[in-house]
C-alpha cells in the first residue's frame, strides 16, 4: 500500500518536473498574445471584407526591415471620404485633429538579438499569412506563430536547397546565379 503512495509520489514528482521544464522552455514564447489596442482596428473589415491589400497600408514591408504600422495619414486617405462613423473612427480623427500619434501595442516581438527583415521575405514571395496567420479574418490581431528560432528554421530549411554545381543549376533551369534562398547561416539573422 505504502509502495503505491511512493510510486504515485514519484510519478507525481516526475509530472511536476516535466511540466515545470516544459513551462520553462516556453518562457518568452507569446503565441496567442492578443493585446487590446488603443483603437479597436478590425483587420477583418479592411483586409478581409474590403480586400485592401496588406501592402497598401504596410507599404514599408517592401523596402524596410520593419513592415511599419501605417501613419494615421494613410488611414485618412480613405476615412476623409468615407461617411461611416463609429466610436473607433472618431478616436482616429481625434488623434489626427489633435496631432497626437497613436500608441499602438506591438503584437509580434522578436528578441533584440535577432535581425529580421520584412522586405527580404516579402520580395522573396513569402505570404504575410505564413507568419502572421489569417489576419484578414481577425478582428483583434493575435500572435499565431510561436516566433521561435526552430519555427523560423523550419521554413528556412524547406527553402534552403542550394543547387551548387553548374550542372545542377542547368538541370533546374536556373540562371547563372542563384535566386535568393533562405539562409541557414547564424549570421543571416544574428549580428
Amino acid at each position, binding site marked *: 500500500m505504502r509502495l503505491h503512495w511512493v510510486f504515485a509520489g514519484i510519478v507525481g514528482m516526475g509530472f511536476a518536473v516535466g511540466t515545470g521544464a516544459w513551462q520553462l522552455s516556453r518562457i518568452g514564447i507569446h503565441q496567442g498574445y492578443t493585446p487590446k489596442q488603443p483603437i479597436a482596428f478590425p483587420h477583418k473589415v479592411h483586409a478581409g471584407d474590403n480586400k485592401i491589400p496588406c501592402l497598401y497600408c504596410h507599404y514599408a514591408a517592401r523596402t524596410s526591415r520593419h513592415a511599419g504600422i501605417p501613419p494615421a495619414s494613410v488611414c485618412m486617405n480613405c476615412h476623409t471620404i468615407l461617411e461611416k462613423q463609429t466610436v473607433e473612427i472618431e478616436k482616429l480623427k481625434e488623434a489626427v485633429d489633435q496631432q497626437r500619434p497613436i*500608441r499602438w501595442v506591438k503584437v509580434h516581438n522578436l528578441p533584440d538579438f535577432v*535581425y529580421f*527583415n520584412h522586405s527580404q521575405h516579402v520580395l522573396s514571395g513569402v505570404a504575410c499569412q505564413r507568419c502572421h496567420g489569417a489576419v484578414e479574418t481577425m478582428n483583434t490581431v493575435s500572435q499565431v506563430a510561436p516566433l521561435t528560432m526552430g519555427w523560423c528554421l523550419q521554413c528556412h530549411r524547406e527553402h534552403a536547397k542550394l543547387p551548387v554545381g553548374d550542372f545542377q543549376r542547368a538541370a533546374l533551369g536556373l540562371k547563372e546565379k542563384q535566386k535568393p534562398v533562405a539562409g541557414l547561416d547564424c549570421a543571416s539573422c544574428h549580428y
Partner: protein
Amino acid sequence: MSDLGKGDQSRGCKSAKDQLVQINGAAAPSYWKSPEELHNGARRTAEFPGGLPSSPTGEETTRRDFLAAMGFTVAAAGLAGCRAPVQNAIPLLVGSDEIIPGVANWYATTCRGCASSCSLLVKQRDGRPIKIEGNAESALFGGGTCATGQATVLSLYDDARLRAPLWQGQPTTWQEIDKRVLASLREAQETKSEIVLLSGSVVSPSVQSIIAEWRNSHPHFRHVEYDPVSFTALRAANELSFGRPVVPHYAFDKARVIVGLEADFLGTWLSPVEFARQYAANRNPEKAPALHIQFESGMSVTGSNADLRVAVPPSQLGLVAVALLRRIAHKAGIAPVAGTQDPLDARKLDAVADELWKYRGESLVVSGVNDRSIQVVLNALNAALGNFGKTIDINKPSLQRSGNDNAMAELVAKMQRGDVHTLLMHGVNPAYDYSEPDKFLDGLGKTALAVSFSDRRDETSSRAHAICPDHHFLEAWGDAEPVDSHFSLLQPLIAPLFETRAMQESLLRWIGHPEADYYKYLREFWRTNIFQRQKEIHDFETFWERSLQSGVVTVPPPAAASIPKFQGDWKAAVDRIQKEAGETRADADKSFELHCYETVPMRDGRHANNPWLQELPDPITKVTWSNYASIAPQTAKKLGVNQGDVIRLTAGTRKLELPAFIQPGQESHTISVALGYGRQQVGRAGNNVGWNAYAFTSMEQGDRRYFTKNIVIEKTGRTEKLGSTQTHFSMEGRPIVLETSMAELRRNAEPGNEPATQPSLWAERLHGEHAWGMAIDMNACTGCSACVVACQAENNVPVVGKDQIERIRIMHWIRIDRYYSGEEEDPVSVHQPMMCQHCQNAPCETVCPVLATTTSSEGLNQQVYNRCIGTRYCANNCPYKVRRFNWYNYTENPKFDFNMESPLGRMVLNPDVAVRSRGVMEKCSLCVQRVQLAKNVALQGKRELADGDIQTACQQACPSQAIVFGDLKDPNSRVSKMQHNQRRYQVLDELGTRPNISYLKKVRNPMETA
C-alpha cells in the same frame, strides 16, 4: 615565396630579436613592437592578463554577495517567466515619402571636425545621423575620412553640450541675449570702441560675406582669425616670396620625390585625408612609387611611412632646408648660399638633393614648421626646382588655414589695455590653447561684453559674459571652400537637439540684417555668387538642389593666372636660420628641446570630450587616454628614465610633469609632447586627461613657435601607468608582417601567389553563392586609424576607459599593429591593420563548447552573441588575438561613464547591430550587416550583387584605399585579382587556418645614401 611558412614555430615564445624569418634566402628584419619587447621578449600574458578579481573596484566577493547574487538570479529567472513588458509602436502621424522606418537615408554635408572641411555623406537612420562617410563625389577628398571626422558624429550626442544660451552662467532666452548684445554693440558704436570677432579659420564663403557686412555696419569692427596650431609662417612666407599671403594647394600625387620637414601631412597637417589619398596612389609599387624623405624630431605617422627618415632636432630643421637649398642652388647655378655647415651627415643631404634635382618639377618639399625664414627658404628651394605650378599650386590656393598669430597677439595686448569693448568668439578656446592664457583671460576680464559661441562651458566660454551655443555641424546649414573654386555645402541631418542657434543667425540678427534666417541668406549668397560662376545649369533651383544632393560644386577658376616669380629675400632668411641654429648648437649636448605636436586622435584638443578619440590608440605610440613625454631610448638610458617615470620638464618658469614614453626613432635631444590634452573644462570624458603643453609654445618673430629650447629634465621619482595597447596581443615572434623591396619585386615580377594548398585534415567546406574575403595592402596603409573609429561607429563597439585598457580589455574590432625593425635609434616601421581573419579552418570554432562561433556558408566566421556563454576558449585559441570579451556591461553602466551610459550618447548606436551584453565574446563580423543589406538592396532592384556593392566600414573610411572587400568566388572582383598579386600572403598561413583575409607585403624602397 615557397619558404615563407617555414618560420620556426617551435621557438614560439622567444624574443623577437632572436627570430629571423627567411624570405627567399635573404634575412628578413626581425620585428618588435616596443623597446621592452626588443630587450625582454614578448609580453607574456597569464590566463587573466588584466588580473582577477573582475570587479572594477577591486573588492573581494563575500559570502553575502554570493547569496545576494543567488537570490537575484532566482528572482530574475522567476520574473523572466512572466509576460514580457508591453511594447508600443508609435508610427508617424503624417507619413513622409522620405522617411521609412528602418531605411537609412544619406545626405551630403561638410565636415567641421577641423578646418580641412572634407566632404561627407552622412547616414541618417530614423531621423538620427549615426555614421559619417566620405563623399566619393568630392574631387579633393574622395570617399575617405580621418579618425576625427568619423568621430564627430558622437560629438553631436555629447552630454556636455549646452541646452540653452547662458548669461553670466545662468540659462536664459535668446531674446534676452539679443537684447543685451545689441545694447552692448550700440554702446560700442556710440563710444567708437572696438568690436572684435575672434574665430578659427573661416572656410565658409557665406560667413566671410556676413563678416564683410559687419565691417560695413560697424566701422570699428575687426575680425581676427586664430588657430591653435598655426600656419601663419607659411602664409607670411608666401607673401614675402610671391606677394600672396596664402597656403598653397599641394599635389602629392604629382611628385616623384617628396621631402617633408616636420610636416605630418598623412596624420594632421593641413588636409591629411586629401594628402593620404594622393600619397597612397603615388606610392603604388606596381607603378613607379614616389620617394619620400622625412626630416623630423619626433616619430610621426608621416615619418613612419617614409623611405628615409632622418631625426633632426627642431632647432636644426632650418639648417636642413638651408643645406638642401645650398646644394640645389649650386646645381641650378643660382647665387651661392652662405655657410658650409650641415646639420647632419652630408652624404644623406647630397643624396636627397640629387634626387630632388633629378626630378625637378616633379618634386615637393613641404614643412610644417611655423617659422617664416624656413618657409621662405623652402619657397626658394621649390622655386629653384621649378615645382610651383606643378606640385604646388599657388594660384588656386588652399583656404583651409587662415589664422594669424600676430593679429592674435595684438588683440590680446589690446584687450589687456582695455581697448576691446565687445568680443565675440567662435570656434576658439584661447584660455586653453593660447601660449599665454593668463594674459588672454586678463584681457577678457576687461571687455565690456564677451560672447562665446561655444557649444559647452569650456575654459574660455565659462569666463565670457554670454554663451550663445552654436549648432553642431550636423544640425546646421553652411558652406565651405576648402580649396579655391571647390565649394561644398552643409545641410542639417537632424533638427537641433537643444535650444541652440546658428552662429551665422546670431551674427545676422545683431547687425539687424533684414534676412536673419541663415538658410535664406545662404541660398541668396549662393545665387549671387557661386551660381553665377558656373555655366552648366541655368536655373538656380536646379543648381541648388543638385548642389545639395551631391554636396560638392566645382566651378571654373576665375582666370588662369601665370605662375608668380619668386622674389623673396632668401639670403636674409638663411642668415637668420644659421644665426639662430648656431646659438642652439653651442650647448646642444646639455640641454634638450621640447617639441609640441598634434596627434592623430586628439589634434588641437577641441574634441577632447569624444571618448572614441580618447580611446583611439595613437598610430605610433599606441597610447590611449593620455599624452606623455616621448624620449629617445638612448637618452632615456643615459638619464636613467624608464617607461612611465614621471619627469619634470622645465624651461624658465614653465614647468610640466608628465610620464616618459620611450619612443624608438625619437631625436636624442628632443622631447616630444602632444598638444590637445589636459583640458580642464570640456566634459566628463575629457576633463583632466593628460597634460596641457600649449604653455611651451611661444611667439618668435611674429610666428608662434611650437618648440622650446633649453629644457631641463628631472626625474620626480613617481611613475604613471600609460594605457598603451602596443604590447597587447603579442603574436610571440611569429612571422606576422612580411616585407619585400622594390628590387626584389622587379626581379620576381611574375605572379606566384596562388592561394595556399597545404594539406588539411578538415573536409573542404562547400561554399554558398559567395565567398567573402578581404585584401589589405600594407604598402598603402599609413596607419592613420580612421578605420578603427569607423568600425567603432558602425559596430557599436563600446569605450572601456584607461583602467580597462591597462588590463588588456580594449574592445576595438580592428586594431592597427605597428611593428618596428632595425636599430632602436632609427627604426623602420610598418602598420598592419589586424582584425578577425575569418579563417576557413578557424581555431576558435573547434574549442567553442556551445557552437557559438561557426563559419557561414559564405566564409564568414560568425559570432552568435545569444549563444555565447563566455568561456573565452575561442579567444585563447585564436592565433591572431582578435577576439574581444565583454568583461562588463558597458551599456547603461555608471562605472563606464562614456557615451553608452547616457541616453543621449546611445542615440549614435547603429540599430542594425546588436549591442552586446556582459559575458559574451565579440569580434569583427566583416560588417555582415552591410553584406545582408547589400543583398537586400540588390533583391529590391531585381539585380545581382556587383563587385563594390559592399564596402565594409573600415574599407569605406580608408583615405588611402588600403582595404578591399569582395567576393572571392567572382574571379573578376577586385579582391580576387589581388589574390594573384605577387606581394600577397596570409598571416600565419602555416598554421593551416586558411584565412579569408590576405595581406599585400610592405614594399621597401630604401634610398641609397652612402
